[in-house]
């Protein structure tokens, strides 16, 4: 029977030739991930199991990135708990402050996830790694605790939905805009429990960083995972990074999909998602006059080097509006360094931006840019729920980095073409 990429990866990890949507399987995991919010709960549960050790100390990644460098005593205690667990179990892939990054920027960059892998993480945006042609999905802490002990997890094989993009992207349009458009069309539960496959000539020409942004937000449509068929762009990214042998899986031409959506990508404009759901997306040109107090460029959606370059293109030689605080967070130490060497950081600071060490920080209203009541923020993050970045009467608008940069300069939601 023909299968999709998702089905093939799941079958391979369940040790069988064939799986069908709806089937429950026990699948081996290649990597298990936790962060400073979810790992403490997972560690508590792990200790209850009473199995002395983790299944493989090289296949667990612990990344304290949400409230780090720690913002208060309680969060410091949580990080300490992970640190001690990592030492006790000699976890190889533990990344502390100074070496860390936002987990979903960091793991691919460090070569810890590769094509054909099955990865689970106690973080909903674990679905990001689908950009590499992997199956990856978010779960809760207890599931992660069980997988840390067993090395496998149970999964229900999802049906797949295919998106086919054709046509050349307009200037200033990237992966973020494509995924915001999709979520705008199908809704925040439009792909509940499903696998998303992003395909077509537009995607074949999309950069790795653009693909990460797309797969990152699969969860915002309720999906289990999102992925891009691996190709030469994938190969160029993983060569020299990924240390295990990897495998490219492709969907069979006659594989079955629950639905197929076709897009003319050349018609898609830069998008902005209005409060308080990612599905409230519309073209920036139709945003109207929305003044902002803050702009945030970073996160696991858009904190990669290409995002930094896009922002710098707009910000170089310009000044941030006097009513706006612009906060820029490179996703990892390595991205920070690349941005530094390329002169992007200097351009940001000269423009009047605050540049931070890698952290999730403001994305979840943690620290480094929490909003007061009535404040409005445009952000390159992935969620604009009520109170996501602070006060329940604050507002978050989602966009790509160029739009967030232009808005910071003009003091209102604006396209980069408006910056003179």
């Amino acid at each position, binding site marked *: 029977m023909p299968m999709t990429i998702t089905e093939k990866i799941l079958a391979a990890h369940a040790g069988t030739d064939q799986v069908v949507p709806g089937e429950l399987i026990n699948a081996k995991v290649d990597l298990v991930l936790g962060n400073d919010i*979810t790992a403490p709960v997972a560690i508590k549960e792990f200790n209850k199991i009473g*199995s002395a050790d983790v299944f493989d100390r090289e296949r667990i990644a612990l990344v304290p990135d949400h409230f780090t460098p720690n*913002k208060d005593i309680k969060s410091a205690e949580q990080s300490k708990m992970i640190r001690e667990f990592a030492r006790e179990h000699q976890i190889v892939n533990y990344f502390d402050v100074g070496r860390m990054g936002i987990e979903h920027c960091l793991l691919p960059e460090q070569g810890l996830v590769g094509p054909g892998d099955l990865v689970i993480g106690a973080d909903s945006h674990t679905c990001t790694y689908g950009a590499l042609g992997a199956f990856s999905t*978010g779960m*809760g802490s207890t599931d992660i*605790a069980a997988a840390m002990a067993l090395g496998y997890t149970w999964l229900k094989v999802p049906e797949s939905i295919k998106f086919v993009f054709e046509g050349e992207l307009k200037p200033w349009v990237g992966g973020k805009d494509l995924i915001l458009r999709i979520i705008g069309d199908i809704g925040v539960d439009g792909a*509940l429990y499903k696998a998303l496959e992003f395909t077509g000539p537009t995607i074949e020409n999309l950069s790795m960083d653009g693909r990460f942004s797309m797969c990152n937000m699969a969860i915002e449509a309720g999906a289990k995972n999102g992925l891009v068929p691996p190709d030469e762009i994938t190969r160029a990214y993983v060569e020299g990074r990924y240390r295990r042998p990897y495998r490219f899986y492709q969907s069979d031409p006659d594989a079955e999909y629950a639905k197929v959506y076709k897009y003319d990508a050349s018609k898609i404009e830069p998008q902005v998602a209005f409060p308080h759901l990612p599905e409230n997306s519309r073209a920036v040109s139709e945003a109207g006059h929305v003044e902002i107090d803050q702009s945030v460029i970073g996160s696991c959606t858009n904190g990669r080097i290409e995002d930094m370059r896009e922002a710098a293109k707009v910000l170089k030689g310009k000044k941030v509006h006097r009513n706006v605080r612009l906060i820029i967070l490179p996703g990892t130490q390595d991205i920070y360094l690349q941005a530094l060497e390329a002169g992007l950081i200097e351009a940001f600071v000269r423009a009047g931006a605050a540049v931070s060490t890698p952290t999730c920080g403001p994305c979840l209203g943690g620290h480094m840019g929490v909003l007061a009541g009535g404040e409005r923020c445009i952000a390159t993050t992935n969620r604009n729920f*009520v*109170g*996501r970045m602070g006060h329940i009467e604050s507002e978050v608008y989602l966009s790509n980095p160029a739009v967030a940069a232009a808005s910071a300069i003009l003091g209102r939601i604006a396209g980069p073409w408006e910056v003179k």
Partner: protein
Amino acid sequence: MEFKGRAWKFGSDVDTDAIIPARYLNTSDPAELAEHCMEGAVPSFPPGFKNGDIFVAGKNFGCGSSREHAPIAIKAAGVSCVIARTFARIFYRNAFNIGLPIFESPEAAEDIRDGDELAAEAGTGIITNLTTGRIYKSVPVPPFMQEIITAGGLISHVSNRLK
């Protein structure tokens, strides 16, 4: 197991930031989390809420983050079970793993009014509206998840296996 309580109604797409805002996630203590339960959906926990009361919501309940703190906060706040039209995937899994009973029932979610007295039976998935006398069925739980419940949650299930 039967749960009885008053219905507290919520809309659709109640997200995990509404259930337990991230700013409180510098702890995993259930009692502390319970204090902030639903802060983003209702300004303060509904006055008149009694232990054992039931949340009833529209589609996609618990969407957003994977934080297990969300079902933990609801459970620790004293909610006996949650009925919704549909649940977001990760929330669904987490609820089973930590032992928060949930019922997926589009008809119940539609028909139940705020303040109705309810009885929900975990084994059969039958929900009775004691106020109106109506009876609703919920979507059956996959047998595999029944096993987890019978074992007393995922962790005991895993411990049994490793023995």
